[in-house]
């Protein structure tokens, strides 16, 4: 770059008023895809309870995820086993803080299978639903239902003392192929425990990881994490 030349150019340009910019911005804004007006909760529920297509119902579920309350729970829960709408229904339920949404997800666990089961378990983890620990522990040890990896991951996200105990059990005596995901989940749980002031439980959990998979990368990580907790 030639400084003098560019500076002259810059000076000239900088003196211009901002009128041109406003026009350009206005033009670009006009070309933008307009924002969809948000539906009300009643409107979104009406879509879910109608014979609208998958796309419309998917959109309604996402909208409900932004603002819905307990009265939307049953309509969303009814879609949890839908092949394509199940995940959209979860986006609705994950957003509803009321425990009725957590209960709907927990209640759905016995009837769901495959991806829909995995999805509900994931949402329980995202919601950090401590009431689900016992059920997740069962799923983590159940080799037939095929959702053990998701169950341990959600235990890690919940990350309270009960979840830590459940993970310790999986690490000590759970199915061999669940121990690695359980170890990764334990690292997450240990962070939650430490943050909550329970460093002792965190260290115990990390110790379980190093015992279960002593020569692994995840055990090496657990050792470092435990070392960082020393003195806490």
């Amino acid at each position, binding site marked *: 770059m030639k400084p003098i030349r560019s500076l002259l150019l810059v000076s000239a340009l900088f003196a211009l008023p901002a009128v041109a910019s406003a026009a350009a*911005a206005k033009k670009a804004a006009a070309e933008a895809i307009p924002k969809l007006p948000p539906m009300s909760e009643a409107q979104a529920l009406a879509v879910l309870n109608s014979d609208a297509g998958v796309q419309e119902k998917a959109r309604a579920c*996402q909208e409900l995820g932004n603002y819905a309350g307990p009265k939307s729970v049953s309509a969303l829960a009814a879609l949890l086993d839908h092949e394509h709408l199940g995940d959209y229904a979860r986006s609705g339920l994950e957003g509803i803080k009321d425990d009725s949404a957590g209960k709907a997800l927990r209640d759905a666990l016995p009837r769901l299978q495959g*991806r829909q089961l995995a999805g509900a378990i*994931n949402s329980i983890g995202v919601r950090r639903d401590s009431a689900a620990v016992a059920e997740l522990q069962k799923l983590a040890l159940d080799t037939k239902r095929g959702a053990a990896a998701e169950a341990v991951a959600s235990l890690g996200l919940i990350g309270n003392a009960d979840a830590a105990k459940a993970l310790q059990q999986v690490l000590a005596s759970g199915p061999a192929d669940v121990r690695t995901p359980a170890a990764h989940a334990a690292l997450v749980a240990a*962070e939650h425990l430490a943050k909550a002031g329970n460093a002792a439980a965190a260290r115990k959990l990390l110790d379980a990881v190093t015992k279960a998979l002593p020569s692994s990368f995840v055990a090496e990580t657990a050792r470092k*994490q435990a070392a960082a907790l020393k003195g806490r």
Partner: protein
Amino acid sequence: MKLTRRSFLKTSAVALGVPTIIPASALGRDGAVAPSNRIVVGGIGLGPRGREVLKSFLNQKDVQFVMIADVQKARREVVRVMANRQYNNQDCQETGEMFDVLGRKDVDAVLIATGDRWHAVASILAAKAGKDIYCEKPCSMTVRESQELADAINRYGRVFQAGTQRRNVDNFQFAARLARTGKLGRIQTVHAGILTLQESHKWLPAEPEPAKDVVDWDRWLGPAPWRPFNKEYINGRWRNYYDFHGGAALPEWGAHTVDLCQWGASADDTVPVEYEAEGQTIHARYANGVKMVMRLSGFKGEGDWVVPGTCPVRFEGDEGWVEAADTGKVAVANPKLLEGGAPAEMAGTDPAKHVREFLDCVKSRAKPAANADVTRRGHIVSHVAAIGWRLGRKVRFDAVKEVFLDDAEANRMCTRARRAPWHA
């Protein structure tokens, strides 16, 4: 047994019973790097931009690119041919399954350039597998993903470089240095160029799904919600759809420009605490009073930027200003600011120096310029600004707890459910 170059050389020499001539380059002579000192790299989802970045990897003598995973057969074949041509051999492998790359013990690092919907999840999976990561931007779809990604990188002690290469482009570095060293006086306002904010919830018409080996549509969608296949999406036209493009398109350039503003404002360890949209302009304010303005720029020179070019930024202090954009040029308020020489002109899209810095950090274990913590906050600013725009009201954000203040609706927009079975 997995066949490696080393085991192949060993076993073939014995089996043939004849002297094996090993090229000097393989031993590290002739200016080449010995295999034991090479960084073995795999690729995941390398389309046009990913291949541009890959060129910078292939140009490094201490890199050996060994495998490409892509859900599109045509794309993985292009990458395999690229690598084999570079090395003049047929060693690069291709697969439709990213776990084939992540499961290889000889792979040290991965280049991820899938599409925004996959970036965080794939990076977290790579971190769990013990790989270092260069990931294209935007690296997250939501505030929560920005947090999860950084937490995972730190948890596993991985080297992470976001593909926000302007942190390693001369004119942007020059501009940030002026701002950070007080040459502009006290910083008052930083400006980030952004693209038009928009998000579509439309679905394109359903088309027949290709064979899984040709395009694995289910895996292409990954953590994004299901919708029927349409070839437009896989041909790169997935942008501006809410389900595939996070933050109403703000992070598309904001990942670069907002990030640079964070840097220029010496604010890599925090984020603005207030955001208010005015049409397509978003005004934000840090706790210390410094303002950030996210305003339109574009491929056609939109906006009143002084320096032409995409991804412009401008830093204003009480004693002067500087502006930079992708043309490699800078403009300054006062010629004295250029004393010592103007920066070399380098295209803002050129990832060469950024890739080199990443590789050096893989060796030294230092944090690169666009590390996970810097990326976390830069991306959060973009997502938070977009949420404020979507809600159409002023929002306040706790820079420490990383949550909106007194705004449940905004907080619910910080996350999205991932399609099962994918989770972080």
